[in-house]
């Protein structure tokens, strides 16, 4: 399935956000997810992905 992750088109096998994080080897728990420009709460990370979805995977970073 073709989706966009952090602005980059990718071919992925995963069918949910949770599986996608594992497939792309994200570790830890400090992530927030936006799916098609809307925040996807952690409780909904089982949501099924569909072709063309745009996913943003966000973590804390330095800021002013």
């Amino acid at each position: 399935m073709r989706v966009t992750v952090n602005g980059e088109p990718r071919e992925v096998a995963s069918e949910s956000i949770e599986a996608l994080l594992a497939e792309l080897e994200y570790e830890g728990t400090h992530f927030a997810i936006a799916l098609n420009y809307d925040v996807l709460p952690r409780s909904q990370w089982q949501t099924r992905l569909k072709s063309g979805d745009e996913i943003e995977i966000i973590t804390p970073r330095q800021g002013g």
Partner: protein
Amino acid sequence: MVKFYDREFSSRLLIGSALYPSPAIMQAAIRASGANIVTVSVRRESAGGKTGHAFWSLIRELDVTVLPNTAGCRSVREAVTTAKLARELFGTPWIKLEVIADDDTLQPDVVGLVEAASILTRDGFQVFPYCTEDLGVAMRLVDAGCRVVMPWAAPIGSAKGIINRDALKLMRDRLGDITLVVDAGLGAPSHAAEALELGYDAVLLNTAIAKAAEPVAMAKAFRLGVEAGRAAFEAGLMEARDFASPSTPVVGTPFWHAAP
């Protein structure tokens, strides 16, 4: 004590977490500043990356309150979505709201800012809007529900200090019950002291400390500048005047009116 929405803090210096020479210096500088509130951002994490996790561990060790920002957002939609991501990530209703109009000056887009502040306030956020010194805009932000307003001193990272002192003074006078923070453009502890002397509740800065030759020592200098400025404000500054007025008593001056 200074109040941000329903929470009170002892330090009137809010500090950024970016641009330090190393993570260890960032931690030491934040500690030396005495700040209770630290700004952070949210960014994309690359696959397999651990940058965010490492940074977050350092911040958590500091026992500070985080104020996430929407730095880099150039539209209302981006800013609102970024604020929601920050709320999800940090579990706080606080957001330092930035909507940027121009990349070279980082001039706030005040029209988008008011719109985004209104949307976020209705959604339960407690908004800290980064704005210009324009009183009309500040009043619109208050109308939108902001109880904190953060006008710039000068463009972000410029170190110029307060460019439009009269406008900042006017904003302080007109928005007496709003927590006002001078955010951005401060370069020296004397600039921070000036903001506090004007009656501003706090200052927010990053670059002036992070880019100093000795960030930890500069963090302490800013802490002292903020404390001095606040103490001066509470002590009540005298009014400026145009002519000299002798401080030493005139009566009894030796040779007074004596013939030459």
